């Protein structure tokens, strides 16, 4: 999905590298004066600012800035912190979480935020009538099945102890629940405003975040104004952020050169990449980070001849990943496994399948396909994906596999991948999986588990290994934060075994590259925030008021 694919694709980035920068950046920020404004552009319209519904590249971090959640991440890192929650406790069995809310947090309509609002918001996000794309993230909370099945109107597991205390009971231990409570879908909304706006709450959002919505001209412009009552002192830095939509990335870049735009939200378009990065005028304002995303080729394990693991391994050896990275001007790093390098659980000692066409041919011969075979590879039809697929096609031809390219609109590729017998191979570029939160489990459950190998699912390899599924469940039951390392090690083992079965060819990990005008400043980590994607608007400042 283009939307979230890009989105939290990056979610995890430089856990190690960027975390190291976080401290000095934070210290520096305290001296930064508030004031000023900036103009951000996006190509696509902002569909909605309803936190239960918004799941796009454009609106993800906009929603983060309008609303607050129990948990959040340290700005520019993927380190979980308490946000609305002043404190929380976990029961020894890991099933009951009790959150103490910060006192005096106000919605921008003036009313104080209390525990009732937290419960209301979680009930709303999980109620099927809300049609939230994030509802299923809350499935470990007790009572989820009842509310999802329409048997209840409220989540039995979420209860209000007193106006400043919320208790969340889980049906089973879940090591990722705190991350889930930091997702946009867990944002706290005021009931009276939701009821007043009805289904149009997404166009009239009211929250308690760093900014509030002050103007929305449909299809043209959205203006955020600083929320003066925001409960964190000194945040946000800017008084005003204007979002202009419907602007092609190339046009946005040109307008930035003229000083009309401060931040092209869609980044540098591929066609302009070389020109911009080589231009001395941009020196020091081009930011690059390893994206927490893997782009891969899926092979449908239920279709011949990919039901034979030798064939899948042969394809893994046939692909020249270095050449593919050159095709896209080095905007990525070659990958050898499912997880991206900065994700916990990444196995840096893993060697993977190296490029070896001769060995690939041997393996095909062993599988009884000495003369090769014919197949079809699906791809999204937006540049650079068809070009990448051509490179893949040539690599496959070199070992005797004749692949026909089917370049389709993204929605049609996704639909074909969700059918058991439609797409033998898919190049995932442009739709690749990006994690919703920085945890390895999110790279397994929705794309490699047996449960996801269903019609309309995202497991395009139709890969199903019941033993690994069970190991994943066991790992996620290790909710004790002290056991986090042990849990990550377990996930590392799971992903190594996935690669033994080779349902994918992991091709590369994308880099995210951004540029901004000299009028605004902030640390690299905030411009390329891992969680507040694409940009953490709360901490960007105007240079002209310093």
């Amino acid at each position, binding site marked *: 999905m283009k939307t979230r694919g890009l989105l939290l694709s990056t979610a995890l980035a430089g856990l190690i590298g960027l975390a190291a920068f976080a401290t000095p950046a934070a210290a520096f920020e305290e001296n930064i004066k508030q004031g000023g404004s900036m103009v951000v552009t996006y190509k696509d319209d902002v569909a909605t600012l309803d936190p239960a519904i918004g799941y796009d590249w454009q609106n993800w971090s906009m929603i983060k800035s309008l609303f607050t959640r129990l948990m959040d991440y340290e700005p520019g890192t993927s380190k979980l912190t308490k946000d609305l929650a002043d404190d929380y406790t976990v029961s020894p069995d890991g099933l009951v979480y009790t959150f103490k809310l910060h006192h005096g947090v106000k919605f921008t309509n003036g009313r104080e935020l209390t525990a009732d609002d937290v419960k209301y918001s979680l009930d709303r996000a999980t109620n099927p009538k809300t049609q939230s794309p994030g509802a299923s993230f809350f499935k470990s909370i007790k009572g989820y099945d009842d509310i999802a*099945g329409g048997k209840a109107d409220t989540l039995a597991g979420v209860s209000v102890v007193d106006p400043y205390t919320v208790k969340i009971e889980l049906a089973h231990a879940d090591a990722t629940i705190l991350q889930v409570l930091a997702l946009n879908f867990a944002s706290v909304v005021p009931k009276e405003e939701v009821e007043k706006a009805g289904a149009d709450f997404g166009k009239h959002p009211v929250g308690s975040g760093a900014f509030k919505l002050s103007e929305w001209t449909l299809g043209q412009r959205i203006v955020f104004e600083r929320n003066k009552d925001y409960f964190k002192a000194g945040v946000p830095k800017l008084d005003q952020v204007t979002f202009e939509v419907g602007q092609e990335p190339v046009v946005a870049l040109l307008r930035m050169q003229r000083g009309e735009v401060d931040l092209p939200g869609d980044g540098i378009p591929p066609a302009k990449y070389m020109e911009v990065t080589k231009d001395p005028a941009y020196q020091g304002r081009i930011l690059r980070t390893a994206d927490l995303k893997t782009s891969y080729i899926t092979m449908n394990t239920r279709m011949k001849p990919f039901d034979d693991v030798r064939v899948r391994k042969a394809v893994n050896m046939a692909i020249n990943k270095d050449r593919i990275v050159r095709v896209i001007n080095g905007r990525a790093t070659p990958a050898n496994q499912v997880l991206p390098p900065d994700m916990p659980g990444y196995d840096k000692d893993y060697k993977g399948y190296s490029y070896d066409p001769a060995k690939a041919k041997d393996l095909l011969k062993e599988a009884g396909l000495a003369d090769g075979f014919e197949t079809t590879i699906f791809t999204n039809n937006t540049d650079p994906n068809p070009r990448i697929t051509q490179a893949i096609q040539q690599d496959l031809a070199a070992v005797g596999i004749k692949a026909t390219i089917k370049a389709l609109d993204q929605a049609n590729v996704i639909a074909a991948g969700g059918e058991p017998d439609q797409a033998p191979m898919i190049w995932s570029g442009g739709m690749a999986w990006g994690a919703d939160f920085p945890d390895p489990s999110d790279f397994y459950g929705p794309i490699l588990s047996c449960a996801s190998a269903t019609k309309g699912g995202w497991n395009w390899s139709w890969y199903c290994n019941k033993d690994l599924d069970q190991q994943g469940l066991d790992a996620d039951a290790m909710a004790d934060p002290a056991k986090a390392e042990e849990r990550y090690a377990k996930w590392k083992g799971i992903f190594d075994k996935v690669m033994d079965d080779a349902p994918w060819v992991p091709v590369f990990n994308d880099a995210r590259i951004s540029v901004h005008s000299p009028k605004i400043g902030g640390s690299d980590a905030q411009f390329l925030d891992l969680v507040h994607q694409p940009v953490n608007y709360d901490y960007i400042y105007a240079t002209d008021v310093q």
Partner: protein
Amino acid sequence: MAAYLLRRLIQAVLILLGVSIVTFLLLFLVPADPARQIAGRSATPAMVESIREQLGLNLPIYQQYWRYLSALLHGDLGRSYLQRTDVSTLVWARLPASLLLMAGGIVCELVLGLTMGLVAALRRNSRLDQGLMIASFVGVSAPQFVVGILLLYVFAVKLNWFPIGGYGSFSQLVLPSLTLGVLGAGWYSRMMRSAMLDVLRQDYIRTARAKGLARLRVIFRHAVPNAILPIVAMIGIDVGIFMSGIVVVESVYGWPGIGQLTWQAIQRVDIPIIMGVTLISACAIVLGNLLADLIAPMIDPRIKLR
């Protein structure tokens, strides 16, 4: 006249009904599943099923169409799957920008096309005539996105005469209108040229010249008004051509009209928006043609409505 109008209106309703059926069927055949799209990639099957039921997507297609049609008769175009807002709200918010652009396009194509045709006719078979007709040929054949990007690059980026895209001021209207008008200007210049050549051969022109009127006066008083008449009636038909043109032009210039709305909806398979915009465009085309047919006899009495 009244009988003619009534018959045409009934025809119009039938055409629109046909368009709605065909569009509905085509969108039904798109493999993307709206319920899954809404439910998100991590959704459980139960959630997808629940959304399918809420939207009535589990019903047989004729029932779905019937539901759509009955809502439509109440003026309800449905709700966008992704924006979760009434399609009519989205369309109304963007319609003024598109109408403004179309008006600009009409002005550009008339001014450009008629001038080119007039000059070409008066300088018949000269180098200038040939040059203008080649230009009109290029205008008719050039893809609008190429024209758009070219104009943007030359006049906004390089020469800095106009803003780079955007909406709100007159200077921002010029380039998109020009891009939209180039195609029509190409057609009109050819029509104007042949109409003028026709008229200039008429007896009354000879009479006018014979009685000693100045050349310019003959042209602008006697020839041009008669040559223009059949062309004016064509403007109604242009609405249809513009409807497809704005999708391209609005995307190139970041113009916040329904063309851009349509393009974004197509990319994300937001079926209610695609359906709504298609119907509204069909309405505009049908009405534009009807208007053209009604205006024609008013300006040229030789045409009769039957």
